C-alpha cells in the first residue's frame, strides 16, 4: 500500500512529505546553529556551577514534545504574549516548537563530542595562545563529521514527533499537516492500513536523509585524503 501510494503520485502525499521535510530540516538547521556553539562553549569552559549546567542540558534532551507544544501554544496563542505575531497554526510555529525540542539534544551531544576532542588538543591550543572563539571554531571544524551525526539525531527526533506539531500546527489540511499528524489522523479514522503505509514512507524518508548525509560525508572524506 505504501508503494501504491508513492507510485500513484498522490499530490496530497507529496505536499505532506514536503512540509514534513521543510519543517524538520529548518528546525534541525536552527537547532544546530544554536546547539553547536553552545555545546562547544560549555565543553571548553570551566566555571562554577558547570556540573549543574551539564545535568540540565542532558535532562532537557528528554523534553516531552507535548510540553514543548503547550509552552509554544501558550506563547503564540492570540491571548499569549506573542499572539500579535499571528504565528499559531503556521509552519513557522511548528519550526519554533521543534527547534526548542531538539536544540538541547544537539547542544548536549555536541558538548560531549567537543569535550572529548578538546582533551586531545588542549595543550596544543594553549601553546598557540588561541582565543576562545578561535578554539571553538577550530574544534567545531575538526569535529564536523561527528557533528553531522549529532544533527541527524536531532532531525530524527524532530521528524518523528507528533505531540508538539499537532498542538501548535493544528493538523490543518494543505497548511500544517505533516507526516506524523497525518498518521495520527488516519489512525483516529480507523484506517490503520493507510496509517501504517504513511509510517513506512516516513521511515523511508528518514532513511533517505541519513543516506544522503552519509554519502556527503564519505565523498568529503575521500577528497580530504586525495
Amino acid at each position, binding site marked *: 500500500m505504501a508503494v501504491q501510494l508513492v507510485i500513484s503520485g498522490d499530490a496530497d502525499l507529496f505536499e505532506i512529505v514536503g512540509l514534513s521535510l521543510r519543517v524538520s530540516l*529548518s528546525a534541525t*538547521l*536552527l537547532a544546530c*546553529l*544554536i546547539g553547536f*556553539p553552545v555545546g562547544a562553549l560549555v565543553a571548553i569552559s570551566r566555571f562554577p556551577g558547570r556540573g549543574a549546567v551539564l545535568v540540565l542540558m542532558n535532562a532537557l534532551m528528554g523534553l516531552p514534545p507535548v510540553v514543548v507544544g503547550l509552552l509554544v501554544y501558550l506563547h503564540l*496563542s*492570540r*491571548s*499569549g504574549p506573542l*499572539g500579535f*505575531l*499571528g*504565528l*499559531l*497554526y*503556521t*509552519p*513557522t510555529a511548528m*519550526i519554533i516548537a521543534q527547534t526548542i525540542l531538539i536544540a538541547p539534544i544537539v547542544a548536549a551531544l555536541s558538548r560531549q563530542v567537543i569535550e572529548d576532542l578538546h582533551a586531545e588538543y588542549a595543550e596544543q591550543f594553549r601553546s598557540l595562545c588561541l582565543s576562545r572563539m578561535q578554539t571553538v571554531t577550530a574544534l567545531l571544524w575538526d569535529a564536523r563529521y561527528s557533528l553531522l551525526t549529532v544533527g541527524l539525531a536531532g532531525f530524527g527526533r524532530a521528524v518523528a514527533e507528533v505531540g508538539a506539531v499537532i498542538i501548535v500546527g*493544528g*493538523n*490543518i*489540511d494543505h*497548511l500544517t499537516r505533516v507526516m506524523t499528524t497525518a498518521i495520527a*489522523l488516519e*489512525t*483516529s*479514522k*480507523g*484506517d*490503520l492500513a493507510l496509517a501504517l503505509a504513511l509510517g513506512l514512507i516516513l521511515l523511508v524518508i528518514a532513511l533517505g536523509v541519513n543516506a544522503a548525509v552519509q554519502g556527503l560525508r564519505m565523498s568529503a572524506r575521500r577528497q580530504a585524503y586525495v
Partner: protein
Amino acid sequence: MKLSHTIGATLSALTLATGAIAADQSIIVQSTTSTANSGLYDYLLPLFQDKSGIQVNVVAVGTGQAIKNAQNCDGDVLLVHAKAAEEKFVEAGFGTTRTDLMYNDFVIVGPDADPAGVEGMNDVQGALAKISETGALFASRGDDSGTHKKEVALWADAGVDPTAASGEWYRETGSGMGATLNAGIGMGAYVMTDRATWISFDNKQDYTIKVEGDDDLFNQYGVIPVNQEQCPSVNAEAAKTFADWLISDEGQNAIAAYKVSEQQLFFPNAPKN
C-alpha cells in the same frame, strides 16, 4: 553576532513565507472531530471556497478544547456539539450568536459477544444500567469533549456513577473519538460514539451498533462566529459569511447531500429565516 543575524534572518524569512499563505481571506474553524473525521469538511469546504474565495482552515479537536482555543481567540468560528457549553460561551461574550446547524445521533457500539446483552435496546438508560450491573467493559472518552459531556449526563440519568469503577470496567481513555474506538475495540469494551464517526470508521472488526433510537441520544451541532469585541484579531466578516452560508438553504442542502456508504451522516436543522 553573525550567528544571531543568521537565525534572525532565517526566522523572518520563514515568517514571511507563511505570512503569505495566511492571507486576509482565510479563517480558522475550531471544530469538533466528528465533522472532520467523517469527511464532511472535505465535501463542504470546496463548495464554500469556490463561491466566496475564503480559505477555511479546520483545527479538529474535542469540543472542550475547541471552546478553550476559541476563548483564547485562536479561531474565527466555533463548530461544536455541546449546547449548554456553547450558550455559556456566547453569554460570556466570546461568541456573537449561536445557531442550530444540524443533528445526528449517538449510538452505543459493542462486540458480537455482547457481554451485557444490550443488543437491540432502544432505552439508553436501561442499557447503561445493564452494562454497569454486569461489569462489562465500557470505554469512555474522558476528555471533556461534546460526546463525553453527553455520556456523563446519560450515566447520571441512569443513576450510575461509573467513575467509581474507573480503571475497572469503566475505562477513560482521555483521547479522541477514533482513538477511543480503537482502544475500546482492542479491549472488547462498549463505546458511545456519534453515528457519523461510526459510519466512516474503518476499523470496526466485529463491532456493530447495539443501542440506538432513544430520543436522549439526540446530537445537536451548533455554529458560532467568534466575537470581534472580545478578540480583535478575528476575521469577523469572513467568519460571518461562512456561518451564514452554512445555515443558508445552499449550505443546508450541501450538508444533507453528504453521504458515506450511501448513508446520510448529518441532518440540517438550522432555523428558516
